[in-house]
């Protein structure tokens, strides 16, 4: 039991808040944690201002759990600020870890996003062409909003990260384990993934695995699946084989294919490319046209392969 309460912060970048919920999903554990730590910043649950953080001494925080990707200047600024104030920075969840769902925006340009959101959208009143600008002059003076970046970064791209807790969201048990390690001072060597296994989802998956030869790919709703057999063998594109385990096989257990949120296996540097390699390898044909046809059943391969990790891929973004 530490003599002094640990000083921690939780902050978010481009995120949905699911990771906050995951922390809360640890239920009574989080209350216990509350006895052991001082939560200095947690916008979703506690009060706290930028200036409070700015006032802290460097390294004053024992740990910051940062979730969400880096989408704009505010995300980056706070990431850097909290990095400086924290002894340990943890990337919590897929967005901070790999770029996450927001990272899929790396397929399009900033211009396309702005047009889609503010101009070319059915929910916008006709003739309304108001676009946010980084700075606006009002009577009270100059108002600034964060600058929207050309692309999405993962946390690691803008600040050095000490630990990664993957998942979208991370499984509550894994969050719990990470917090426990933090509180107990049993953290593994820096820059490692915690709260996950070294194998892939298949290791924990209860489904039966037999011969992998696919002649047709299906969307999950297109077929009546055998609940006991490997989804991939049934032609359902399941990313489990290319995804780090630790989630508790939540998706395949509920009849949905793994979508890859825990990121690549330890030895793999590009999850999507590996997934593409594995998936195409099991196509059961030697005829180029048939191969094209079979693989043609797979829609949006970039989105499939890098659903949670486009900014973490080798190519990171579309160059269009």
């Amino acid at each position, binding site marked *: 039991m530490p003599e002094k309460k640990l000083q921690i912060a939780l902050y978010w970048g481009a995120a949905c808040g699911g990771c906050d919920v995951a922390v809360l999903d640890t239920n009574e554990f989080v209350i216990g944690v509350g006895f052991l730590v001082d939560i200095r910043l947690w916008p979703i649950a506690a009060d706290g201002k930028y200036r409070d953080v700015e006032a802290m001494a460097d390294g004053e925080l024992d740990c910051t759990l940062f979730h969400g990707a880096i989408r704009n200047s505010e995300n980056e600024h706070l990431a850097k600020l909290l990095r400086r104030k924290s002894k340990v920075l943890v990337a919590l969840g897929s967005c901070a870890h790999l770029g996450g769902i927001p990272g899929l925006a790396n397929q399009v340009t900033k211009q396309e996003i702005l047009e889609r959101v503010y101009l070319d959208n059915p929910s916008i009143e006709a003739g309304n062409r108001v676009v946010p600008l980084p700075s606006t002059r009002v009577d009270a003076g100059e108002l600034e909003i964060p600058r929207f970046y050309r692309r999405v970064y993962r946390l690691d791209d803008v600040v050095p990260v000490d630990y990664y807790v993957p998942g979208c969201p991370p499984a509550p048990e894994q969050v719990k384990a990470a917090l426990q390690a933090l509180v107990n001072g049993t953290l593994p060597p820096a820059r490692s993934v915690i709260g996950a296994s070294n194998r892939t989802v298949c290791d924990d998956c209860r489904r039966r695995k037999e011969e992998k030869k696919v002649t047709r790919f299906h969307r999950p709703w297109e077929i009546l699946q055998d609940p006991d057999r490997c989804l991939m063998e049934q032609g359902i594109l399941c990313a489990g084989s290319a995804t780090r385990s630790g989630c508790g096989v939540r998706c395949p257990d509920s009849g949905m294919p793994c979508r890859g949120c825990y990121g690549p296996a330890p030895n793999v540097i590009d999850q999507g490319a*590996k997934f593409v390699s594995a998936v195409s390898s099991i196509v059961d044909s*030697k005829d180029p046209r048939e191969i094209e046809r079979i693989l043609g059943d797979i829609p949006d391969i970039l989105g499939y392969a890098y659903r949670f990790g486009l900014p973490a891929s080798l*190519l990171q973004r579309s160059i*269009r």
Partner: protein
Amino acid sequence: MGFEPRIVGFLCNWCSYTGADLAGTARIHYAPNVRVIRVMCSARVDPTFVVKALAEGADGVLICGCHPGDCHYSEGNYKAMRRFPLLGRLLRDYGIEEDRVRLEWVSASEGKRFAEIVDDMTERVRRLGPSRVKTLLEADRVER
């Protein structure tokens, strides 16, 4: 000097690499833009190698294996063939032009064919101009 494409070539040991050696023995000249990396079989070419090469600044990637039906490893080249369409679509989604990545079959006796493929590929990539992948990655880089 104009733009000289930098192309990474992955050649299978038994057919294509031997074919490339044969082009040498026969003194068939071709463009010097392809830098060859030898693999035992085209089936060893992980799509990761291709994206890795592009990320490292390659303007093109050439994969060569034995002709279908002639693989030293029985059917490794079919696996290379299977991986290519999906990889191609992935790269297209990334905005990388189709001509930058190419899969070709070159037998051990086709030194001339290898030279022609290299020349043709070099020319096509030259027309496309330099790949923007690495430039953009570097431009995007954030000071940590």
